């Protein structure tokens, strides 16, 4: 990394969003703009050919099948459905009161997960970064990402064991003179339980990206900060955090966009009819209603609905991020 010593501090400078060609200026100008861009950057564009082909064939082509959200699909029949039914399936779920309940639950669980599971890996990475002994640091880190390798069945099993009537948590409560709580059966505990197990499983693994980002920070910046008399806190605040900001913002935007995608399998394993009021999310409701097997069309309509929300969310998050911190996905 010694070559980077001559560079300006990364992260602290984002190039102004100037464009090679002016946006407006008539069609002819645009055409010459493209021609110029192609002549100048054809090598770059050529690198994009294979990936674009990938997206076209393996992502966009199968997407045509989503037309069944508006057509009646019958398993074993035409892949594009049998007949147009318009917004029938969309109306079906919009008019279903249970759908809105599970929609709310999804927002709650997704929101809480984002609120806790996004910052914790950053904190953990910063803590790890402050460990001076390299062997210790490596050890802690290697151990902390082990839960990532456990299947959700196991994680759910461990959670249930911990919270059982005669499990360690209730033992501890007993020592404090508290009656045992049947956490698994109490709707008001479900979110805590879900987010807690999610943190446990993802926090360590989440640090990897930040640790990788930390390596790109120029050591000279710390040096300069120290010469300026900055203490460790100030160094973290003024050098470390700005250094990992692009990674942080990218992940934040991505997480905001995908926060509706609550872990289906985990909810399925942890919930029960008593906790449906808080635990039931869109995917589990759709699964339980057997819609998957009975009506692909209905499932596709809900899928499109979720996709639109996701797209709106990520676009807004991206705009907001560009305006406030100047980092954005596009």
């Amino acid at each position, binding site marked *: 990394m010694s070559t980077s010593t001559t560079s300006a501090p990364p992260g602290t400078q984002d190039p102004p969003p100037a464009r090679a060609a002016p946006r407006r200026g008539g069609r002819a100008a645009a055409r010459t703009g493209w021609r110029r861009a192609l002549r100048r*950057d054809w090598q770059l564009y050529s690198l994009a050919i*294979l990936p674009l082909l990938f997206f076209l*064939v393996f992502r966009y082509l199968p997407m045509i099948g989503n037309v069944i959200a508006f057509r009646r699909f019958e398993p074993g029949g035409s892949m594009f459905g049998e007949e147009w039914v318009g917004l029938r399936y969309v109306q079906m779920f919009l008019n279903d009161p249970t759908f809105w309940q599970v929609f709310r639950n999804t927002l709650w669980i997704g929101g809480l997960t984002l609120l806790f599971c996004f910052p914790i890996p950053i904190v953990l990475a910063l803590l790890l970064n402050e460990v001076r002994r390299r062997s210790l640091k490596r*050890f802690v880190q290697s151990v902390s990402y082990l839960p990532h390798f456990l299947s959700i069945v*196991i994680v759910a099993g461990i959670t249930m064991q911990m919270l059982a009537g005669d499990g360690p948590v209730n033992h501890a409560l007993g020592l404090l003179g508290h009656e045992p709580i049947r956490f698994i059966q109490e709707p008001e505990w479900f979110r805590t339980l879900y987010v807690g197990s999610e943190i446990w499983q993802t926090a*360590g693994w989440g640090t990897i990206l930040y640790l990788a980002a930390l*390596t790109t920070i120029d*050591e000279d910046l*710390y040096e300069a900060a120290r010469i300026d008399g900055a203490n460790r806190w100030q160094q973290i605040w003024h050098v470390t955090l700005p250094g990992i900001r692009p990674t942080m913002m990218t992940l934040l935007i991505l997480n905001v966009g995908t926060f509706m995608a609550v872990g289906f399998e985990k909810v399925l394993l942890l919930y029960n009819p008593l906790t449906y009021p808080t635990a039931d999310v869109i995917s589990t409701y759709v699964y339980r209603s057997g819609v998957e097997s009975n009506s692909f069309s209905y499932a596709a309509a809900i899928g499109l609905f979720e996709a639109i929300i996701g797209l709106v969310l990520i676009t807004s998050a991206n705009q907001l991020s560009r305006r406030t911190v100047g980092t954005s996905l*596009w």
Partner: protein
Amino acid sequence: MVKPSRSYRVFQGVNGVVLTLVVLVTLYPFVNILARSFSGERQIRAGEVTLLPKGFNLTTYEIVFQDSMFWRNYGNTVLYTVVATAVAMVLTTCYAYVLSKKNLKGRGVLVGIAVFTMFFTGGLIPNYILVTSLGLKNSVWAIALPNAISVFNLLVMKAFFENLPAELEEAAQIDGLSTYGTLLRIVLPLSKAVMATMVLFYSVSFWNSWFSAFLYMDRTDLMPVTVYLRNLIQGATGGGNAGAGTEQLSQVGANIQSVTIVLTALPILCVYPFVQRYFVSGVMLGAVKG
């Protein structure tokens, strides 16, 4: 060097406690699983196994190891992981590099094309028909090609590339390096940490994945080990139509899940230290200088 302030020393102490806690909380279940995988069925069912194996027993390992299908499927897993990761790395790197050029005309559209696919996906059946009609079924390409770019990884990598000092590339171009040359000789060597991370992310996800193979492979000898073990767990613990009954199977039912975790997680865990090497370089440099 500035002497660490008092508050910083307190912080170091607290940090030590917090990290120790993290280690305990994350390590315990794993050690427990390791212990269970070597324990006797009676002790497992009675809930006696905590940190050390009780009633040492290797039956489940023996049964799994004796099955030639297990080894063949394990081989498949290695092959699929290596090929798929290689394909994914090439495509993702190319595209991420293109996207990282802020002045590139049409960049917004190119990013949009990728981001759109994070939310809008094709259904199961269209995908199956596509893979079948491309003639990819029963080959490694059925696994590697449809999953070649993870948009998440793509955008993370792009963020890293953007963060590289622009002057270096400008200098390289002035020196007459082509775009390809810049990518290969300048950008990639500077991005070892993120490349290592991406290799880790891709390989772990391909290693653990089972659904593509399950869907696109028609023969048991083409399945990866994840499908094999998934099926074994189901058979030993799910009951199924025809029950088990022998002492052996009862033992298998008791700890096949633990054995599975040990067998699938351990090899990929061994990859990690190599990846980790690239994480500390910057900090290490600082430590030496400091």
